[in-house]
């Protein structure tokens, strides 16, 4: 990008400056990123001398999309403010959603409880204590009606954060509910997380089926919604690097995990006879905005370029609309502390800024009580207002991708990209993503990462204020938000009412058909749509998966 003679001049001047620098003492800290990329004291034109602006950086909405996925970015439309939210019962969650909507939220996201996540009904006594404690219980179609009552789901997009094992039952309930309300599901906008790695290495699954079946279930949903155009505007999967990043891996590994996983899904659908262009334009991503300010911005920029190259070179995607890497961001829950919780507001604001400066399409900001309970109304409002301070008061979005051209950011974007390609290779050597799980490879990667991080915290190499520097006693927010203790009774009654109403003989026939579909390993979606419309619960559908495919204990590494 620079004239050769000019670069020579820069080199000479830099040598002089280095002499000045040599005589000075540096502080005794490691100058590395969170991914342990060594960082120089200064970046100059010399660090990006081989870059070509047009081919490597280019323009927003134009390959290789380094500067953004749309030509106008936030000058055209702001990111979606979407707070992941759910607790107690669907009715209480509906109330929280309306509260957020009235305060300016622009997208919804359902956080479900552990039973919905694992496909367990509340009648299971080993799980009953967890009804509604960590998210909203969505066990049957009636729950979906209650969740979305008086909410304009034809105008505002909804993210259903469920994973492949329960994607079909929960999402089919949502689609059936929408149809019964008179909406055309071909127009419905939203996202299903549907991410195999969330429910295997992010969280540990409880009595789910083995990974090869989980991968197939994830792909069934992509095929039925988008490739077969039943719900063509839906995002059928959200590769959620955020969840495993929270488990301790670094920024490079986060992208490695999501891209390796995405390739396995694309390959599966191509084996089914589809072309990449039939569905890749609806694949979405969910990344973390963590502690290292510049590395995260570089990561978002690198991710767009890597995805573009993967789509164009590996999958020979033709339609330019299918080349863009669209992503939601969540600020890093694991960076927050229960000690001095108000400091979390500052941490979250900085991380939100990373996401916006990195060009995200949608953003969740954590509440300051994140480390100790589900968010209180006061805390969640501060989280939403944090995004609104950025959008309405800072003017950061006057211009697109303002960090482009920074010697450091461009260098770091390249460096992250190079390391991610190498890490994708390493994962792919372990096989498709289901094999990398069942062999234990990914569990070992996770273990090594979080022990390393833990050691860094215990040794003080990584600082967390309130924990290992300026420690304060374990002191919590004044008001700890508690979920509704009656939720278990409310949800058991909801299911009893449904069971009394439904045609059990008709449902039994549909469930038998589902057994047959599972045995033949055909796409489960059409039959699960029928089953939940007739009143099947999430547990009833998942129990058929368990019956036909068995359950799986992951090869955890300690």
């Amino acid at each position: 990008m620079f004239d050769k003679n000019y670069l020579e001049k820069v080199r000479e001047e830099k040598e002089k400056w280095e002499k000045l620098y040599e005589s000075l003492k540096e502080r005794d800290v490691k100058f590395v990123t969170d991914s342990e990329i060594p960082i120089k004291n200064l970046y100059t034109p010399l660090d990006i001398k081989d870059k070509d602006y047009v081919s490597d950086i280019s323009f927003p909405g134009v390959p290789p999309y380094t500067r953004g996925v749309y030509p106008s970015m936030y000058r055209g439309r702001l990111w979606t403010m979407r707070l992941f939210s759910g607790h107690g019962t669907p009715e209480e969650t509906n109330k929280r959603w309306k509260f957020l909507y009235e305060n300016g939220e622009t997208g919804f996201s359902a956080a479900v409880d552990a039973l919905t996540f694992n496909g367990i009904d509340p009648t299971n006594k080993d799980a009953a204590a967890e009804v509604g404690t960590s998210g909203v219980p969505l066990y049957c179609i009636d729950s979906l009606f209650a969740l979305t009552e008086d909410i304009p789901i034809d105008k505002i997009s909804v993210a259903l954060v469920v994973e492949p094992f329960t994607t079909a039952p929960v999402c089919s309930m949502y689609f059936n509910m929408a149809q019964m309300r008179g909406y055309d599901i071909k127009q419905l906008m939203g996202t299903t997380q549907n991410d195999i790695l969330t429910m295997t290495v992010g969280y540990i699954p409880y009595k789910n089926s083995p990974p090869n079946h989980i991968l197939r279930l994830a792909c069934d949903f992509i095929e039925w919604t988008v490739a077969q155009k039943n719900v063509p505007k839906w995002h059928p999967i959200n590769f959620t690097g955020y969840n495993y990043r929270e488990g301790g891996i670094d920024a490079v590994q986060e992208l490695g995990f999501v891209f390796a996983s995405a390739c396995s899904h694309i390959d599966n659908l191509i084996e089914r006879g589809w072309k990449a262009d039939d569905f890749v334009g609806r694949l979405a991503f969910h990344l973390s905005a963590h502690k290292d300010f510049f590395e995260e911005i570089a990561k978002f920029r690198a991710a767009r370029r890597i995805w573009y190259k993967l789509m164009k070179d590996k999958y020979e995607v033709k339609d330019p609309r299918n080349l863009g890497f669209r992503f939601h961001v969540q600020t890093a829950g694991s960076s927050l502390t229960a000690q001095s919780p108000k400091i979390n507001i500052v941490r979250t604001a900085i991380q939100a800024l990373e996401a916006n400066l990195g060009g995200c399409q949608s953003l969740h900001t954590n509440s300051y009580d994140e480390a100790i309970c589900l968010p209180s109304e006061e805390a969640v409002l501060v989280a939403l207002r944090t995004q609104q301070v950025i959008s309405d008061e800072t003017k950061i979005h006057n211009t697109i991708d303002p960090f482009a051209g920074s010697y450091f950011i461009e260098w770091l974007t390249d460096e992250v990209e190079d390391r991610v390609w190498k890490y994708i290779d390493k994962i792919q050597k372990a096989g498709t993503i289901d094999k990398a799980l069942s062999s234990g490879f990914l569990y070992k990667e996770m273990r090594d990462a979080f022990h390393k991080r833990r050691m860094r915290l215990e040794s003080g190499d990584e600082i967390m204020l309130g924990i290992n520097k300026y420690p304060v006693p374990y002191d919590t927010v004044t008001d700890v938000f508690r979920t509704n203790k009656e939720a278990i009774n409310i949800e058991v009654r909801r299911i009893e009412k449904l069971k009394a109403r439904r045609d059990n003989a008709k449902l039994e026939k549909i469930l038998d058909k589902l057994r047959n579909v599972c045995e033949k390993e055909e796409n489960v979606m059409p039959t699960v749509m029928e089953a939940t419309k007739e009143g099947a619960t999430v547990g009833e559908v998942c129990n058929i998966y368990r019956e036909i495919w068995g359950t799986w204990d992951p090869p955890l590494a300690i």
Partner: protein
Amino acid sequence: MSEKKIRVLMSKPGIDGHWRGGIVVSRAIRDAGMELIFGGFQNVEQIVESAIQEDVDVIGLSIHSGAHFAYTQQIIDLLKERGVLDNFMILLGGIVPAQDFSKLKEMGVANIYGPGSMTRDIIEFIRENVKR
């Protein structure tokens, strides 16, 4: 003090999949030279059965779902019913508000470790307080 290694059961009551804390502490227990019995997901009966069968000194519970009172009470009740409550030190780790500590201790939990706890403090507490 006997030469027998301290034996610790690490268990995850319920179905919530937040496991990292339990695994990190498990590794620390093993690295400290104690005997780790990794129970994984266990229901209340399985936890009590494992503790008795494995003759452990410590029952470590990892609970991040907010259901810490329910599970801890059920486990303590069953240990009492079996007449073995006094044989074990019960430790709890996870997302537990500090306001809940005193009630949990009254119920019979020896100590509770919330977010931001250091594994070395857990090891030290076990060494100093284990019932031998």
